[in-house]
C-alpha cells in the first residue's frame, strides 16, 4: 500500500495541532471526491460515535468506610440494589437493576421508571443519592447498618465498567403476532406494524473497524462524555460470523468491554432509560477514534449506511423461542429513511439509538483530537478476530 502511517506519527501530528480529523460521516464524501489513496494520505483519524441503550453497563463504587466500619452485605442506592459481594465497602451498580419494590410486570406492561441506569445518571449529574447498607457484623467490621446521603464527590472511586457495549450490528425487530409486544427493542406493534432498529449505522464504531485492526485492548475512547478505555472484548463477542465483502458482519458480532472514570463523565452521555413492559437500562455514549494507518483503514471507515445490513427478526416467537425463520435483511439507509419493505409490505421504522447524538459524539471526539487533548493508542493486545474459533454457547438443557 502506498500510504503507511504509524500510531506515533499520527500522535506527533496531533501534538503539533496538525492532524486531519474527520467524522465517519464526513469521510464518505471526502473519499467520493478524492479517492481512497489521496484521502488516506490526507486524513489521520476518523471519529465514530454511538448513543443507545446498553443494558450490560454499570459502575464500581468504593464508598469509603463508616465509623464503626462495615462489611456491606447488601447495598442500595436510591432503593436500587448494588452488588455487594466484593470487598467491604465496594459495590457494583448495574444499569438494568430495579428497585426491590418495583411492580415490574405485575401490572402489564410495567413502567420501570427508575433503575440502576438512572442512579448512575443521578450520580454523574451531581445529585444526592440515598445510600443504605446492611451487614451481619464481624469483629473487624462491627457495624450492621449504614444509612446516608452521598454524592459522586463523596466516594473514593467510581468507575464505569461495562461488560458489553458497542455491539457490532444488531437485529431489526418486528412482531409477527396479533398482539402488541413490549421488548428491549421498544414497543412492537402487531402484524409487523413497525420495525425497530438500533446502532448508528455508518457512524457506529465497529462498523468502521470491522476486523478490530485498530480497536483492541487498551484503546483510548470517548466514554460517557469522558475518557475511557477498551478493557477487553465484550461478553458474547462472536467475531466469526458471516460478513459482507466490506468485512461488515451481517448480524450481531463483536462487542467491547469498556472502562472509565465516572467522576469525569457527563450526565448528557449516561442517561437512564425506561422501556415499557421490559425494564430499565441506560443509554451510553461511546466514540472510538480510528487512526488511518493505510488505505485499508480508510476504506473501512468510508463504509456507508446502504452497505450495512442487519437481519430482520421476529420478537414474538423467533427470538424468544429460537424458532427458525428468515425475514430477510434491511440496510441502514432504508431503516433511516423511515420505511422498509418486509414481505412486500411497507413498514414504519422505529429507531432506538440516537443518530443525532452519535453524530455529536463523533464531532466532540474530533475536536478533542484536533485540540491536542486526546491522543490515539496502539492496542496493547488484539481482540479475537474473524478467524477466531469461538462457539456461541447456550445454557445446557435438562441437566440437574
Amino acid at each position: 500500500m502506498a500510504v503507511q502511517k504509524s500510531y506515533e506519527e499520527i500522535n506527533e501530528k496531533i501534538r503539533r495541532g496538525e492532524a486531519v480529523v474527520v467524522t465517519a460521516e464526513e469521510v464518505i464524501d471526502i473519499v467520493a471526491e478524492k479517492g481512497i489513496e489521496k484521502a488516506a494520505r490526507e486524513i489521520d483519524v476518523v471519529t465514530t460515535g454511538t448513543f443507545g441503550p446498553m443494558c450490560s453497563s454499570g459502575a464500581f463504587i468504593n464508598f469509603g468506610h463508616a465509623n464503626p466500619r462495615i462489611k456491606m452485605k447488601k447495598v442500595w442506592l436510591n432503593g436500587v440494589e448494588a452488588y455487594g459481594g466484593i470487598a467491604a465497602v465496594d459495590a457494583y451498580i448495574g444499569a438494568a437493576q430495579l428497585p426491590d419494590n418495583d411492580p415490574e410486570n405485575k401490572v402489564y406492561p410495567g413502567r420501570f421508571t427508575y433503575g440502576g441506569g438512572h442512579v448512575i445518571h443521578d450520580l454523574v449529574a451531581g445529585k444526592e443519592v440515598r445510600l443504605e447498607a446492611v451487614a451481619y457484623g464481624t469483629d473487624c467490621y462491627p457495624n450492621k447498618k449504614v444509612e446516608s446521603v452521598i454524592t459522586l464527590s463523596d466516594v473514593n472511586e467510581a468507575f464505569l465498567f461495562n461488560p458489553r457495549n458497542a455491539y457490532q450490528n444488531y437485529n431489526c425487530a418486528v412482531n409477527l403476532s396479533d398482539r402488541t409486544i413490549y421488548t428491549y427493542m421498544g414497543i412492537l406493534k402487531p402484524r409487523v406494524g413497525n420495525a425497530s432498529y438500533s446502532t448508528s449505522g455508518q457512524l457506529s464504531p465497529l462498523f468502521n473497524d470491522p476486523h478490530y485492526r485498530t480497536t483492541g485492548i487498551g484503546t483510548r475512547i470517548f466514554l460517557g462524555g469522558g475518557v475511557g478505555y477498551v478493557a477487553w472484548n465484550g461478553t458474547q463477542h462472536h467475531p466469526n460470523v458471516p460478513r459482507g465483502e466490506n468485512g461488515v458482519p451481517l448480524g450481531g458480532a463483536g462487542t467491547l468491554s469498556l472502562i472509565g472514570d465516572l467522576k469525569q463523565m457527563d450526565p448528557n452521555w449516561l442517561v437512564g432509560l425506561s422501556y415499557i413492559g421490559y425494564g430499565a437500562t441506560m443509554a451510553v455514549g461511546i466514540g472510538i477514534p480510528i487512526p488511518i494507518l493505510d488505505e485499508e483503514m480508510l476504506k473501512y471507515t468510508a463504509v456507508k449506511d446502504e452497505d450495512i445490513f442487519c437481519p430482520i427478526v421476529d420478537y414474538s416467537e423467533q427470538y424468544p423461542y429460537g424458532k427458525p425463520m428468515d425475514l430477510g435483511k434491511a440496510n441502514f439507509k432504508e431503516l433511516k429513511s423511515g420505511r422498509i419493505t418486509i414481505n412486500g409490505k411497507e413498514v414504519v421504522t422505529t429507531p432506538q439509538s440516537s443518530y443525532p447524538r452519535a453524530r455529536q459524539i463523533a464531532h466532540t471526539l474530533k475536536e478533542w483530537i484536533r485540540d491536542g487533548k486526546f491522543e490515539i493508542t496502539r492496542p496493547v493486545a488484539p481482540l479475537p478476530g474473524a478467524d477466531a474459533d469461538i462457539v456461541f454457547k447456550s445454557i445446557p438443557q435438562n441437566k440437574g
Partner: protein
Amino acid sequence: MKNKIVCHFSAAQSEQPIVYHLVKNHDLVVNILKANINPQKEGYLVIELEGSKKSYEGGLAFLKEVGVIVEPLSETILWDDEICIQCGACASFCPTDALSIDRESMLVSFENSKCIVCGMCLDCCPTRAIALHFEVREAV
C-alpha cells in the same frame, strides 16, 4: 359535532354507568382518552364526544344532571427537549406527524398544532421526555 371534555366525578358518580348512558340514551360516540380514579373512587375522565348537536347538548345536560362537573379539555403534550435524547422512537408511533424526524439531520421535533393528544408517544419514550398535561382539579 365532536369535542373533547374533562369530566370530574365523585365516588358516588363513579359507580354509575355514565358512558353507557351517553352512548345508549344520547346516541354519542364516546372515545375515552384518559381515565384516572384514585383509591377513594374520585377521579376524572377525558372523553371525546361525537354526535349531532342535539345529542351532544343532551349528553352534556345528562352529565350535569348526575352531578358530573364538565370542563372543556385543556390538555397538551409537553415535549421536553432537554430530556429528549433524540432517538426518534416516538415519531414512528405518532399518527399525525406532530412528532417527526427530519431525515437529513435525524432530529426529532414536535409541532403542537398537529397533536391530537392520543398519548401513544408517552409509552414509547424511553427517557420519559414526553408528558401529558391536564388542567385537572385536585378534588371535586
